[in-house]
């Protein structure tokens, strides 16, 4: 029963992240510099005990589907699989005094979650932007885009956390 619930949440999360990215965030940009890739929130918030093979495969699938819409065959898939793989190492590296049971601000606290998300978002965006550029001309310009976009994505990820999870905490 529990497994079924987990599976349904997992599939729903996958589809919703995909649709929101394609229909609402695809063309979003600030000052021609900052772009939002909120869809990786899916990978960031997958349960800790999820099967790592499933995590890798779903990250690959999500990335590949988005590649079609961004005309960047393979790039999003590459970046997604990379952060899906580095996820558990990042959690281990940051460490924590209390045990982490759920990847959400209500469990981990704001500063832990910001560190964790920012590291992975930064890696993901570095890969995306430098792969698209395919050379190191305009290095600083691309770096500026990476940093601006990472902050943009981070802010939306945090907003989603507060919108979706903060109330349920009081309700329970």
């Amino acid at each position, binding site marked *: 029963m529990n497994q079924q619930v987990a599976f349904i949440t997992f599939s729903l999360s996958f589809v919703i992240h995909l649709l929101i990215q394609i229909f609402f965030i695809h063309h979003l940009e600030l000052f021609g510099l900052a772009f939002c890739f909120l869809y990786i929130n899916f990978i960031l918030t997958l349960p800790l005990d999820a099967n790592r093979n499933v995590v*890798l495969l779903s990250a690959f699938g999500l*990335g590949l589907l988005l590649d079609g819409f961004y005309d960047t065959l393979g*790039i999003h898939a590459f970046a997604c699989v990379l952060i899906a793989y580095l996820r558990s190492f990042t959690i281990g590296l940051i460490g924590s005094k209390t045990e982490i049971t759920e990847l959400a601000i209500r469990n981990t606290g704001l500063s832990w979650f910001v560190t964790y998300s920012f590291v992975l978002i930064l890696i993901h965006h570095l890969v995306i932007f430098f792969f698209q550029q395919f050379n190191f001309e305009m290095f600083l310009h691309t770096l500026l885009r990476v940093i601006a976009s990472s902050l943009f994505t981070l802010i939306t990820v945090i907003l989603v956390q507060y919108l979706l999870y903060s109330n349920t905490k009081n309700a329970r």
Partner: protein
Amino acid sequence: MRSLFLILKSYQVLLLFLFLEGLSLALVLQNNYYQNAVFYNSANTYVGSVLETSSSVESYFGLASVNKQLSLENQRLHGELEALKQQVFRENKKIRLDSAFLNQYEFAVARVVNNTTHRSKNYITINKGFKDGIRPGMGVIGPSGIIGKVKDCSAHYSSVISLLHTDLIVSAVIQKNDAIGRIQWNGKSYSTAKLLEISNHLNIKKGDTVLTSGYNKTFPPNTMIGTIQKLSTKSQTYYDIDVLLSTSFNQLTYVYVVKNQLEQEQEILETDSLTLRP
């Protein structure tokens, strides 16, 4: 054998990781080298129809500006038509152009369903494809100037390499003195591109008009590209020229795909003469 399986199992996640990364990397590289070998991109039928749904909702909000744009274009075309009529009338109606040249270019209207301007390699998706006679390599122009070149087609959609793509090079000419150069985007602002290979002894000024030259098979000659916005003489031989593009790439709605009926003829002739060369 059993220990081999055990080793494989303990590294299972790492192996899957490496396999998926290898697969993605192969896709990236293939996409970069073989332009036509791509079947999965925004020209894909399913991806295209989702993009079209999304853009048809957006297009309602832009109807006013599209109308204005189209009526301005109508006005300009009427003006040109009148001027040509007058000219023919004055020349005693004696002009007989070869009909093959008169009908050399055919235009197909398409709607832009997806467009980016912020990457260094930008693509546009339009809602016409193979079934409408669109083929890879055809030029795409808009009401106010050139836009790009068709890269891939599916049955109903095509993916177009935007002029805002650092690899697309277009032969250009300065209207005033017929100086030939080439236009290439430098990946920075979506409103300007670089005009290269114009010798710095030529007399050109800010505001001069830049058109497509007759040395390309993709675009009709003398199609608008833009006007010179800034020029400096940094290098010894060439000007460093910024061209203000006449098309605003962040507001594309309707475009025309150019079918050059004589392209094949020209191509055959050119390859023949190349192979015949001693």
